């Protein structure tokens, strides 16, 4: 079985972080609205569209890839900041423009929130591109060091 099942029992709630629960929820709603607005504005102006091609789909383990620019990626996200269901998280921006090696294709993963195995498409993880654990309105950062999920359309293969 998986270690993630008992995470809540491995520790106690940080009181400082728990006290800001309501504020975080409110901020999430505002952020979602702001994101929708930004997307509409980009659509009117010089929106960059990411080409969907076979080459992107063929990206696989050991390939060297460059992460596209933040603007390119943002312009192709939906109202929830996702591409094909994969969320582009705030901490991922720092990896934009950098080069990485593909560690693994993500075909299935255990979704902690829903507690079930989920089938995915066109996702990879990159060597060294991990979450810093820093989140808005949290005093402490998560130390789990999870790998970010990258949609293949956010990457360019380097020959």
């Amino acid at each position, binding site marked *: 079985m998986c270690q993630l099942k008992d995470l809540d029992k491995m520790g106690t709630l*940080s009181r400082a972080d728990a006290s800001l629960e309501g504020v975080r929820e409110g901020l999430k709603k505002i952020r979602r609205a702001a994101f929708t607005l930004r997307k509409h504005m980009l659509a009117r102006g010089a929106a960059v569209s990411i080409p969907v091609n076979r080459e992107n789909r063929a990206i696989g383990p050991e390939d060297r890839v460059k992460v596209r620019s933040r603007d390119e990626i943002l312009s192709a996200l939906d109202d929830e900041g996702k591409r094909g269901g994969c969320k582009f998280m705030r901490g991922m921006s720092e990896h934009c423009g950098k080069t990485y090696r593909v560690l693994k294709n993500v075909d299935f993963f255990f979704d902690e929130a829903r507690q079930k195995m989920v089938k995915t498409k066109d996702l990879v993880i990159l060597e060294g591109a991990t979450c810093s654990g820093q989140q808005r309105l949290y005093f*402490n950062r998560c130390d789990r060091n999870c790998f970010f999920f990258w949609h293949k359309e956010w990457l360019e293969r380097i020959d």
Partner: protein
Amino acid sequence: MFRSKPEREPRFPQGERISVRTRKEIEAGLDALNKRDHCLMTEQMWDYCGQHFRVMKVVRHLFDERKNKLYQSHSPLYILENLICHGRTNIFPHQCDRSCYLLWHEDWLDNV
């Protein structure tokens, strides 16, 4: 003023070379469910017993996505360089590709 102190200070700093204790030593401190302070010793982790690794990070806080809350670990936990979960389990027909770093309880590690 709200910040609570960890119950135990970590013994191994980040970057330190450590060895994983032997299977016998680790087993002696596990409960019936193969856990130590609720931290599971997975099947894969037995393969690393007796080997040397470098501490990549001391894990003081863990975000639980199921409960959407951040927890402060009771006892120091560690992630070790390059030791990620292979995702194979007999519960699901498919392997999980999430590649989480394995969590190591301090009592399972020793100085080199």
